[in-house]
């Protein structure tokens, strides 16, 4: 059951929520979903709430197209060209290929094949033989080897024939008909092919009402999930030997792949998504009133994201840490620019970010690093509302609903109020606001009032000298927990099943690249249970994403 509040309140990306008019209603279990999720005609189970576990195989498209990120990585691994060719492609969509998308694919294919043609090192890497006579034998070898890697499975005889006839027409289709030009033509044709551009799953081996994926299809699921790219030779060998048929075999490969540097990029991208980082987000446009924060410098903005990325990589890979460690580890990454914000001596640091053990009494994990704190602040003050709303909505997955009218225009009362906490409480005092703000959003943010708008620690308010009060009662799922300050807050969140399930859910959604279904929610529940047991590393969790039925089976979508 999803807890829902009638006309509850929400904080907006660039609009601090300052007033609400709606009364919080009783929690309801109606779970109404807009638009209908489709696919429940045959069974009587209630699929209106996708967070409810219904065992089975999710019904998914057989034809997902490569995303732009996957395209870049695949071209890097397929051709050895690493220059972000996806800038030539249309933006990612899940719909049909339209003129714009097709133009992009054609341009990229033509440009990349021309690049190969003009580069002797690339050519010798891709052309596996020296042509003799008409070069047909060598062309066949090229077609079969490049084709297997481009289509991520061996070509059918029919497909080999199509590319061979292209080779045979090289005289009329290229400028001078040389073997190299023909090879470039074959490469262009592979890169334009739907079987390259779509990660198609076409095995029709039925197992009851669902279909068993082939080992090649499993290899692609593994490589795109863990590396965002095509399979490597070891995966292809395992696929050829049909050694990706059991969960155990899949897990062995997943463990191997997570030790590869390519997995680090995937973990980085997930946490970018988890934290709402990246271009166009709060993290990318932090500016501060120089009158209030003379120490703030715009040069810090990219460093704030880098520090958080380094922290995540450190905890996940170097420390083999858990979700709990992400939320509690006191390590920071500091250089001379950031040192003053952590109350450290800049003279001891250079330009590079280096690991530092921060004071465990004041810093605890991901959300006490400078980046989150500064990005979730306002121009001239910290924002308990932005911070609290993020923690509630995106860390605890508290289903807070749509915002009320007039949310932006209520002023922050200042008269006689000597703390930001008191002012924000007064601002959100009207009956309509109070339900959401005073119970959920504000208290969570108040526990972080020990950090100012650039993330530096403070125990008094800069404008009044009044002591900071960071004690609060914070809702974590259905429990209300007393905490005093950020260290206690994140210890409690690390241990909260709601936060663990939220993290697991976001991983499943990220890894499977789609809206989750009832079947996926069973995987979420299983992972969350392991997280709650403890000692379950983030890498364990990622490896276990390959252990759901979804990784070995597919089911056909229903509906229009």
């Amino acid at each position, binding site marked *: 059951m999803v807890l829902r509040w009638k006309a509850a309140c929400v904080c907006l*990306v660039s609009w601090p929520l300052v007033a609400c008019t709606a009364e919080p209603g009783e929690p309801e279990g109606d779970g109404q979903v807009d638009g209908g999720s489709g696919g429940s005609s045959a069974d009587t189970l209630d699929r209106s709430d996708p967070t409810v576990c219904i065992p089975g195989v999710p019904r998914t498209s057989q*034809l997902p197209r490569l995303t732009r990120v996957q395209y870049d990585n695949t071209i890097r691994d397929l051709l050895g060209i690493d220059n972000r060719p996806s800038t030539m492609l249309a933006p990612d969509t899940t*719909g049909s*290929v339209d003129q714009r998308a097709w133009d992009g694919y054609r341009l990229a294919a033509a440009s990349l094949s021309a690049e190969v043609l003009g580069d002797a090192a690339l050519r010798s890497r891709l052309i596996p033989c020296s042509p003799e006579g008409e070069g047909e034998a060598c062309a066949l070898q090229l077609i079969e080897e490049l084709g297997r890697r481009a289509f991520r499975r061996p070509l059918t005889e029919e497909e080999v024939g199509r590319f061979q006839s292209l080779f045979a027409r090289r005289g009329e289709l290229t400028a001078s008909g040389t073997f190299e030009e023909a090879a470039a033509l074959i490469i262009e044709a592979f890169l334009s092919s739907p079987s390259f551009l779509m990660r198609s799953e076409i095995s029709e081996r039925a197992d009851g009402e669902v279909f068993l994926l082939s080992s090649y299809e499993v290899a692609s699921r593994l490589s795109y999930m863990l590396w965002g790219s095509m399979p490597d030779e070891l995966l292809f060998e395992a696929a050829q030997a049909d050694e990706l048929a059991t969960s155990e075999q899949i897990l062995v490969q997943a463990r191997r792949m997570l030790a590869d540097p390519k997995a680090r990029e995937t973990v980085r991208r997930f946490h970018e998504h988890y934290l709402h980082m990246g271009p*166009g987000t709060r993290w990318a446009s932090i*500016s501060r009133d120089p009158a209030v924060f003379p120490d703030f410098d715009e040069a810090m903005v990219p460093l704030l994201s880098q520090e958080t990325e380094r922290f995540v990589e450190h905890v996940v890979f170097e420390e083999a840490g858990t979700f709990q460690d992400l939320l509690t580890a006191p390590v920071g990454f500091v250089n001379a620019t950031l040192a003053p914000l952590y109350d450290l001596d800049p003279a001891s640091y250079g330009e590079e970010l280096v690991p530092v053990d921060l004071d465990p009494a004041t810093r605890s994990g991901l959300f006490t690093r400078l980046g989150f704190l500064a990005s979730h602040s306002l121009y001239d003050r910290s924002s308990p509302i932005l911070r609290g709303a993020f923690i509630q909505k995106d860390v605890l997955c508290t289903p807070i609903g749509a915002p009320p009218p007039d949310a932006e225009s209520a002023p922050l009362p200042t008269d006689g109020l000597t703390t930001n906490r008191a002012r924000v409480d007064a601002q959100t005092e009207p009956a309509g606001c109070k339900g959401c703000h005073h119970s959920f959003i504000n208290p969570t943010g108040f526990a972080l009032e020990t950090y100012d708008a650039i993330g530096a620690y403070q125990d008094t308010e800069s404008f009044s000298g009044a002591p900071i009060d960071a004690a609060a009662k914070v809702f974590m799922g259905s429990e209300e927990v007393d905490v005093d300050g950020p260290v206690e807050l994140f210890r409690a969140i690390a241990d909260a099943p709601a936060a663990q399930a939220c993290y697991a859910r976001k991983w499943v959604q990220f890894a499977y690249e789609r809206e989750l279904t009832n079947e996926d929610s069973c995987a979420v529940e299983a992972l969350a249970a392991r997280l709650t047991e403890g000692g379950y590393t983030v890498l364990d969790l990622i490896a276990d994403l390959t252990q759901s039925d979804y990784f070995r089976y597919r089911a056909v979508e229903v509906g229009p």
Partner: protein
Amino acid sequence: MNRRLFLRGIGGAALAAPFLSSLGGSVRAQEAAAPRRLVIFYTHNGCLTNRWFPAVEDGPIDASALAGKTLEGLAPHASKLLFPRGLALYPAYFRGQTIDPHDQAMGSKLTCAPLDTEGSHWALSHSLDHEVARRVNQGAKNPLVLSVGTAFNNVKGILSYSAAQEPYAPETNPRNVYNGLTGLFSSEGEEGEADHRIKRGQSIIDLVSEDLAAFKRLDMSRADQRRIDDWLQLLRETEQQVIPVACNEDSATTLGITEADLAAASGGGFGVNLATAFTLGGDMMIKLIALTMMCDNNRSIVLQWPGYVKFAWDGIEHDYDHHGLSHRNGSADVGGTCVSGVLDAIAEIDGWYAERYVQLVTLLDSISEGDGTLLDHSAVMWLPELADGNAHNTNNLPIVIAGSCGGYLKTGASVNLAGGTLGTGNSEASCADGGMGSNSLNTGSSGGMVPLNKLYVTLMNAVGCQADDGGPVTSFGVVDSAELEAGITDPGELSALRA
């Protein structure tokens, strides 16, 4: 009769010859009447409305009505302008929904639909540019949606929707737009070279079609079948498109679209700084709009400028981003204290965008087409996100349309559609005198509540859209009042805007 396109007088020079030389070349088909098109030029964060509107609220306008206004640069085109006055967006913040004024002004602007109250707040219907594209584009292809720099792929950055909750992100790389046109160019001169290129392209289309056909043997879902069918259909239509003779490399060169210019504007497609994206990139996108029209490759075109940027080019050097300046306080907060010189800073931005709009209109009016110019056969509308950026109001919207769209629209006129006196808004009610005073939010307008839907219906008819029964279009969008449940309450076009 061939559709003859030729340039005259870009930058003062007579440029007809290059296009005439291509007549008699490989024209693939002819069409009698010039196509009609809709172009939407879109900017964020409102403007200083009291400086923007022409001096005449209802009645004929000429250059004098624009004197001293933001749009003064349009004076030479005054006889081709239409100011539809008194229009408002529905639903909008406080009018039917209360999500966020920017989310709603973006998401509902071209869709006239509510937003999803959950998740990403995507709009719950498709947008005008897609509706028009579906009805008037060759092959019903998607509209050409352009932007510059890094486009936000969230509700605050997306204007175009292909369907409910299907955001259609803009193309930001000029080279990609150009590439979409070069395949259409008629091949003059280098016969041998072009010949094998055309055959090569066709051989790849054949191979791709065979690959797709193999998928059709599978027992797939309806959605997956549609993906395959749409792709096959697209490949067939690529072959059937009607291409005017002026669609060639000479036209591109004459417009100033060369490899060197593209490289400078695109930076290889990656890593262009914002100043380059806005100046060279924006200039190139405007030229590419003209070339797109000359190739008749799209009749529904959007150019949206990103809103959350700090101006630092063309002699402008701001301390705050456009959004923060529009709030008068330099930040995402509202209210607060005016930053020094904020009205001048906003006026600089308004002026910069006005110059781009003038550039687009001037360019399109300099290219002959049939018995007029590209502009004469188009409706080129400057549509804003908001009226005043501080008040976030979307009533009494400042909108101008250049071009009569083939004689359908009234021109040389301002038309008060709402009745009464509209006024020009109160954008300078706060922060006047360059001062640092307290910022009030009373900078918007009252009145001017005629639903924007009706303008869109008028524009759809102007570009030649037909309703499913073959008659004129009578409604667009999901909602045209603050009552979300009421649907469309006031169908029909705005006959006062007809020529």
